[in-house]
């Protein structure tokens, strides 16, 4: 019952049942613990990863239905820091940090589709990502900043 999966550019074989949500394949089978479990019902966004560049809640996506390449927080910056991660550090966004992998992956999806989002568009895109420390103002500022960096020619 193995299945092959491409995660962060690496092809790998996974021995888990096809019903297993991608979240637990990443965390428990592949040791990629940067992706977090928060609720298990797609209500908090802590488990957000990309499948073919699109943000998905990995707690809801069964392994058997993963069609495409998976990118996690560990693979976001192929060579060093992604522009969003750089902006996150510049704006000192994280407090406890537990939700931030999901926040960054969600923000990356937004910027891929909308290189210059307004506050309202950021609010719309990020509404599914909960942060109990309340880092929202810093997240919004970091997204604007990363968007500027990307528009002025920073690498994706």
């Amino acid at each position, binding site marked *: 019952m193995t299945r092959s999966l491409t995660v962060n550019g690496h092809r790998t074989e996974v021995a888990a049942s096809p019903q297993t949500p991608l979240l637990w394949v990443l965390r428990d089978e592949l040791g990629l613990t940067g992706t977090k479990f928060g609720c298990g019902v797609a*209500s908090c966004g802590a488990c957000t990863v990309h499948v073919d560049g699109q943000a998905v809640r990995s707690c809801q996506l069964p392994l058997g239905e993963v069609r495409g390449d998976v990118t996690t927080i560990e693979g976001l910056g192929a060579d060093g820091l992604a522009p969003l991660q750089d902006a996150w550090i510049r704006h000192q966004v994280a407090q406890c940090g537990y939700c931030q992998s999901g926040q960054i992956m969600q923000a990356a999806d937004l910027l891929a589709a909308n290189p210059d989002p307004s506050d309202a568009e950021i609010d719309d895109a990020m509404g599914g990502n909960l942060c109990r420390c309340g880092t929202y103002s810093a997240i919004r500022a970091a997204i604007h900043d990363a968007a500027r960096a990307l528009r002025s020619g920073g690498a994706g």
Partner: protein
Amino acid sequence: MSRLGKITRRTLLVGAVAVAGGAAFGIYQIRRPVANPLRPEDGATLNPYVIIDRAGISIIAPRAEMGQGVHTTLAALVAEELDADWEQIRVLHGPPAAAYYNAALAHGALPVPEYAMKDWQRSVAHGIGAASKLLGLQVTGGSTSTVDGFERMRRAGASAREALKAVAADRLGVGPDQLRTEAGQVIAPDGREIDYRELAEDAASRPVPQVALRHPYDWKLLGRSLPRSDMRAKATGQAQFSTDIVLPGMKFATVRICPYLGGSMAGFDPAPALAIPGVEQVLDLGDGIAVIASNTWAALQGAEAAQIDWTQSPLPATTGAMFDQIARAFDDRPNSTMRDQGKPDDQSAQLEVEYRVPFLAHSTMEPMGATAHLQDGHLTLWVGNQAPREHLKVAAEAAGLAEENVTLHTVFLGGGFGRRVETDITRQAATIAAKLPGTPIRLTWSREEDMRHDFYRPAAIARMRGAVENGRITLLDAKVAAPSVTRAAIGRLTGRSMGGPDKGHVEGAFDQPYDIPHYRVAGHLADLDVPIGFWRAVGNSFNGFFHESFIDELAHQAGADPLQFRLDHVGPESPVAAGTLEAVRDLSGWGQPLPEGRARGVAMTWSFGTPTAVVIELAREGGAIRIPRAWMACDPGLVLDPGIVRAQMESGLIYGLSAALMGEITFTDGRADQGNFPDYDALRMFNTPQIEVAIVQDNPHMGGVGEPGTPPAMAALANAHFALTGERIRSLPLIRAADYLI
């Protein structure tokens, strides 16, 4: 494997003076007990805060990093005096050790309002703090970490620096006063540089030099917003929380414990769980089961599938019956009357009202979890926690081991807010690991398990009487009833039952800086055994709402502007607190005309040493109400990192607004009705106000910042609601009374 290797090596370095080329400096001197309890104590215990090894400088933080930035500020205290290169240092959680006791926890022990403490009372409190070393409470809580570390962490850095200089002076044949230090190096008069790493081993065996601390004018790191030491790891997914430890051969566990609180398990059938692919074992934990599987999802499925017979909860069957039980506490004599001025019984009241607040969950982003491994009679645990020594003790008990056979690593906390003082998760992890010797286990709770097995902020009721005359409050007579957090949580933590007047029960009500002639606050302890615990701001979280809502009612009774009304009463008692009201008035432009459909409310509370004033603006939008803006002003005295203070203020405000707006745990037959975020949500980006923070530094005493933003936020929101709608909300959460944009 390198990760585990690194942890083991560092642990050795912490425990020993000099191992494998590293050197740990014992710095802080605690003096031996003498007859006069006001004197500090004499005699030496070497407490390690600094490690220098081949890799560089590590600073040991005695408090848990749960988002509040304490690793950064505590490390900066050491680095400031040590002259370490901020970009190069590493910060580690301290191991469980009596040396890391939190003296500032005891600063609130005296039954006097903090704002009005005399110098001699502060000395007494400080003496109690030194004595609290006997309890050895290594607790992160009460917004105390920076206050506690301010002296001793700087001394740690200064003494280490002087020891390093002394060794360099010997080697160079010059006097130490001819040497200077910078960025992890000793620099000779001729410009030669010696790296601390080359000096560390010899320096560790030197007597500890006592040196004067630098004047704040000379600070290079303290007083400015530093890059947080944990930021890069948290932006790249590398930060390790309780369930992020990867060990070879690891199994994955979850638990399902009786949700009828106080009930237990009569029996269970593991067969349906074992039928789930991946489930390997079902363990009997007495009051529930643990499921062991090849991944966490299989374990969660298995726990769900197991057939379990629960026994009943002894708690009242409904939330209403619980409130009735709390209200019965008013019939008994008060446990405390910590504010008792004038003759309240002789005054007739113009207002007599009752307030109620619900039970609340902590709802940390990271559900409870732990990693544990019993190997060759030694138990190793990784768990984000706020009280390492207590967790260690509980783990040893649960596994049937002596404490020296247990190693506990504190890892990052995915939110704490008081929840991770509690040792339940560690007890479970140790119990499971002990049943599976040789197998590392990663224990993860479901969100539902987390929400239904919290140690909740208690529900509480306040009965208030008040009167005004000529624009001034003549009477404020408050009674507060709730089960006692102090007795429940301190009792669990220390194994001692707490007696006497319960200050924590009335904090936020009895200790507020208002000049009122007839002023009384009585605390009534309710007999209700719902598990309760420390929740951000503790007693202030309900008393701040009660007291500041009622002050607002009195302001309207007097026909006065609510902010000026507060200033009139606070000014004579505390210019520092009045300063925060003035600052938030100026920051928000209070009093200027607002557009149609907008209104503002204000509140000010003094908690954890820091007066904090909040203005909330509400706006009607369609049929709903939203919270577009918030302004805060706090005065924590000397500020060590303004960026972190600002972040904590915003965080505390959002936590308080979330609770006041939509937080409510209710119970049916002793089981919490809410299990996950769809039933118990919090503010999200789109409904969080734009927040501005003013930091005032007129307070002569340093206060905390993690909690003081929470209490005034709740009251300011309800007061703004009144200003907008004319409806006084005396029962939270607000969404039960009005349609808010959530």
